[in-house]
């Protein structure tokens, strides 16, 4: 245990050096005192004895130093001295300190902020038990152009029963329900789940119990699990909530437990959980996202092979689509890591943004490196002197590295502050589908990252002057009187290279943001299928069966709400639909068209289903191209009618008018529906995706999916106003809805513009990030060019003076300097163009309506960047030209 005592001693020396010093001084004073006493006893006078005692003791300062070395903290003491020296130096040169620290802070702060997001969203494992064994289960039908659909009940049951690779599988389904009786009526986000889902994820209720198989089988009493958030919000985290009932969609349901707060299904964080009971089990109905846990040691490939095997079994065991059809559609199920599903496209965006700010950091570092080179140049004589009086090379190197590390740490500290602010900003701007954002902040991992970056930056810069003074350049510099003419050239060339690299990086960033701007423009240019979305307010209203028991009651309630809203001053038109624009509420199925009998073994293509009220197309200004729109009489008389989109009509009949009067049905035994109108396509999957083919139904359909009077009770209203801000009529709208039924909540209140913007959020997020990064980089780049040229001009003052004295005009000199800047800019731009062609390929997935090699963008960016560089060199050029020849020659 002696080493502990040893360490304790050293720690004492580090932490309380004053006491150690005091003790040593007193001890040595006593020593001299005692020696003097001895000499006095030998008969020497007091004063002489003291003098002699001091001589006998030897050089006091040196002795103290020797003794101090025995404390074993030499390195710490040196470090302390170096740090003190550095801080003193920085105080003496605040401009250098401010510029380097601020530049580093920009770079480190930016990278840290983005790293924080990247870490939270992409890198961190999912908060489930053994998350690497969790997979999302999907289907794909490339034969009919469907990349990915969720699971169907029949396959789910087959996988559960026959799988050799999956431990278990759970399904869920997003849903929306109305809770009444707690406070105001409230529409809540519900996840309907199978009993196996939570065990698969490895989560259990924090209160109460999980679902059992009875809870999710026909005859279920539909008990409720609360989310922790909802439990706290509505029940004040009351532990006695288990066993109580809650009124949901008009029925009393018993609460059986509370799920933990961080539970998320995909990107969905539900308020409540509701049992998922299948009314119909067949091979169709692809509606339910599935999550499975792989058995230990099973790979994704093995699981996929297993799923292929089981697809065959499903078609044998269940009704629905025959195997041959599935083959034709190239139907297959596949799994992929659940995390890929949750993170999804966000990871591409975030890696690109991270790479971007990484480039900014590099630009910043190049600037700082240049500043360090200048400083090294300036202090050459000082360093040479210190070296001459005996400072070892190692000691000098350590001094430089301490200095740069101190700057790195200060820059890093400022950067962390910036990152903190940046994170707030990111939270505001992030696309709504970016998962797991709520925990973003400066956690230990992120701080470690920032500190690591600071230290690394510090070490790198510190080695620059060390290299600069390596291999005997020092003695030379003393001889040369500090001009370092020979070696100086080489270092100047290095700095020129730095600037060129910087210009190249700035160009890449500018091209990246240019391409994003073009993408954004292209997206905004797409006619989405509706007009002037800024005028339209939307919100969802769901009419539960307790308030309106029959289909007619439900339809009439919606009809009356529409009438009431229509009477509000400022409202020009109003309508409603199951899904408005790209709000994400989707329903798909296939239909059979009269006159186009499916060839044996082939079934029709999946179409998007939507349910609309009269007035809907008018409110969106989504033109009806042929025929007519839905009318209330269609609803109340259950007329078998529907509308389709233009692309649907063209697919079969070549033009919209031809489609009117044609018929289709939803299954081989079902009744026929007549197409009474054709409307313009709407980009419901986002304007970057092709517009899907849509069938618009009335709110009540006589027969659909085996149900009579299939009724759509939950619809989104679209209110077009003449108001600047459509949200300003919200109070009147609420009153209008509640005048019909005070129990109906208004949910998901958004303007149509916001829905559209949300669908483009990924693009605008990337655009803003890249834009900020490019702007910062450009600023730093300009500073870099300016700095190097200023230095160059200062170095060549005498040369300029001679030139002017020999008859060169100021314009000649100016041109010479600007040409130098232009040269650096042009070479940098050339390198940057080549790099941009390669690097922008990484972001091709984010682009729309523009290729990665877009001449217009490249040309504009290159030309303006060269222009900016020339502008930056103009100031030093003017200074060079204004040198008075006599003064320049007197210089030195």
């Amino acid at each position, binding site marked *: 245990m*002696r080493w502990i*005592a*040893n360490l304790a*001693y*050293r720690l004492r020396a580090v932490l309380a050096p004053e006491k150690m010093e005091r*003790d*040593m001084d*007193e*001890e*040595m004073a*006593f*020593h001299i*005192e*005692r*020696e003097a*006493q*001895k000499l006095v006893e030998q008969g020497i006078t007091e004063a002489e004895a003291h003098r002699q005692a001091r001589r*006998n*003791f*030897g*050089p006091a300062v*040196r*002795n*103290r*130093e*020797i*003794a101090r*070395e*025995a*404390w*074993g903290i030499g390195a710490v003491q040196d470090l302390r001295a170096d740090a003190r020296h550095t801080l003193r130096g920085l105080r003496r040169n605040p401009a250098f300190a401010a510029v380097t620290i601020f530049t580093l802070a920009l770079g480190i702060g930016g990278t840290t902020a983005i790293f924080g997001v990247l870490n939270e969203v992409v890198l961190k494992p999912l908060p489930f038990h053994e998350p690497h064994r969790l997979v999302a289960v999907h289907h794909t039908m490339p034969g009919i152009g469907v990349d990915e659909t969720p699971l169907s009940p029949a396959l789910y049951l087959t996988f559960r029963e026959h799988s050799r690779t999956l431990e278990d599988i759970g399904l869920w389904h997003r849903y929306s329900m109305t809770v009444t009786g707690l406070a105001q009526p409230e529409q809540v986000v519900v996840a309907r789940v199978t009993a196996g889902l939570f065990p698969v994820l490895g989560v259990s209720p924090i209160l109460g119990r999980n679902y059992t198989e009875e809870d999710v089988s026909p005859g279920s009493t539909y008990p409720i699990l609360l989310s922790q958030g909802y439990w706290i919000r509505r029940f004040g985290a009351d532990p006695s909530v288990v066993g109580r009932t809650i009124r949901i969609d008009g029925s009393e349901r018993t609460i059986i437990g509370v799920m933990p707060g961080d539970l998320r299904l995909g990107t969905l964080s539900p308020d409540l959980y509701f049992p998922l009971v299948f009314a119909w089990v067949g091979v169709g109905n692809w509606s339910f996202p599935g999550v499975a846990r792989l058995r230990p040691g099973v790979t994704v490939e093995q699981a996929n092979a297993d799923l292929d095997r089981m697809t065959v079994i499903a078609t044998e065991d269940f009704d629905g689509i025959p195997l041959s059809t599935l083959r034709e559609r190239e139907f297959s199920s596949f799994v992929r890591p659940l995390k890929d599903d949750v993170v999804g496209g966000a990871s591409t965006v975030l890696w690109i943004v991270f790479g971007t700010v990484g480039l900014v950091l590099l630009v910043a570092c190049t600037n700082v490196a240049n500043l360090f080179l200048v400083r090294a140049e300036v202090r050459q004589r000082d360093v040479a002197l210190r070296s001459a009086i005996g400072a070892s090379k190692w000691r000098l190197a350590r001094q430089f590295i301490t200095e740069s590390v101190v700057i790195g740490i200060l820059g890093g500290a400022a950067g962390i502050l910036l990152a903190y602010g940046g994170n707030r900003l990111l939270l505001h701007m992030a696309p709504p589908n970016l998962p797991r954002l709520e925990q973003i902040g400066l956690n230990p991992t992120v701080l470690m990252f920032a500190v690591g970056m600071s230290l690394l930056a510090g070490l790198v810069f510190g080695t620059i002057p060390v290299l600069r003074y390596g291999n005997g350049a020092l003695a030379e510099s003393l001889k040369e009187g500090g001009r370092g003419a020979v070696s100086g050239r080489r270092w100047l060339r290095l700095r020129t290279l730095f600037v060129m690299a910087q210009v190249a990086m700035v160009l890449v960033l500018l091209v990246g943001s240019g391409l994003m701007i073009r993408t954004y423009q292209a997206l905004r240019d797409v006619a989405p299928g509706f007009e002037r979305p800024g005028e339209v307010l939307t919100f969802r209203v769901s009419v539960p069966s307790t308030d309106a028991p029959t289909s007619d009651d439900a339809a009439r309630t919606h009809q009356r709400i529409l009438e009431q809203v229509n009477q509000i001053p400022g409202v020009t038109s109003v309508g409603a639909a199951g899904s408005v624009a790209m709000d994400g509420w989707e329903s798909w199925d296939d239909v059979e068209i009269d006159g186009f009998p499916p060839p044996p073994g082939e079934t029709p293509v999946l179409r998007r289903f939507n349910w609309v009220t009269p007035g809907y197309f008018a409110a969106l200004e989504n033109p009806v191209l042929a025929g007519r729109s839905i009318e209330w009489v269609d609803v109340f008389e259950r007329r078998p009618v529907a509308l389709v989109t233009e692309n649907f009509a063209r697919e079969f009949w070549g033009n919209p008018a031809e489609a009117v009067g044609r018929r289709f049905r939803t299954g081989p035994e079902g009744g026929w529906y007549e197409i009474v109108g054709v409307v313009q396509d709407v980009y419901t999957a986002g304007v970057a995706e092709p517009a899907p083919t849509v069938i618009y139904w009335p709110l009540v359909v006589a027969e659909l999916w085996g149900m009579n009077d299939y009724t759509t009770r939950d619809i989104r209203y679209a209110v077009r106003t003449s108001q600047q801000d459509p949200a300003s009529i919200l109070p009147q709208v609420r009153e209008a809805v509640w005048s019909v039924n005070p129990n109906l909540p208004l949910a998901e209140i958004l303007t149509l513009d916001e829905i559209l913007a949300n669908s483009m959020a990924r693009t605008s997020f990337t655009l803003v990030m890249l834009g900020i990064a490019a702007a910062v980089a450009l600023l730093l780049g300009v500073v870099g060019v300016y700095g190097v040229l200023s230095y160059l001009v200062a170095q060549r003052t005498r040369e300029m003076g001679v030139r002017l004295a020999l008859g060169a005009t100021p314009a000649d000199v100016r041109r010479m300097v600007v040409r130098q800047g232009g040269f650096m800019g042009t070479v940098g731009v050339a390198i940057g163009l080549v790099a941009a062609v390669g690097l922008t390929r990484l972001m091709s997935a984010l682009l729309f309506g523009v290729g990665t090699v877009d001449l217009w963008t490249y040309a504009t960016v290159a030309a303006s960047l060269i222009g900016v560089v020339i502008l930056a060199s103009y100031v030093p050029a003017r200074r060079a030209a204004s040198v008075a020849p006599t003064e320049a020659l007197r210089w030195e």
Partner: protein
Amino acid sequence: MGKHKPDMIKGTLDMLILKLLSLEAMHGWGISERIQQASDGELQVNQGSLYASLHRLTREGWIKSSWQATENNRRARYYALTRAGRKQLGIEAEHWGRLAMAVQRIMATA
């Protein structure tokens, strides 16, 4: 050049200090004085090295120090051997014995 005094062999100062402190607790000046007296002035102690040695031995845990009054009622820092120090003294004394003998043998034959 005057009378030549041999340099202290590296590391022997530590051993001498340990040896002296094994007899009684002493302060720095006392140790220095005793070494000179006992060696009839052959060994001159550099005072800087002396205190470096004392501090290093303290750090190693072989000696410990405490402030005490001298016979003249002055405050002085007295050093005393610890148990670990006594063991270390044994080790160093044995090393020294072997080294001295080896050197002596070579000097005798050559």
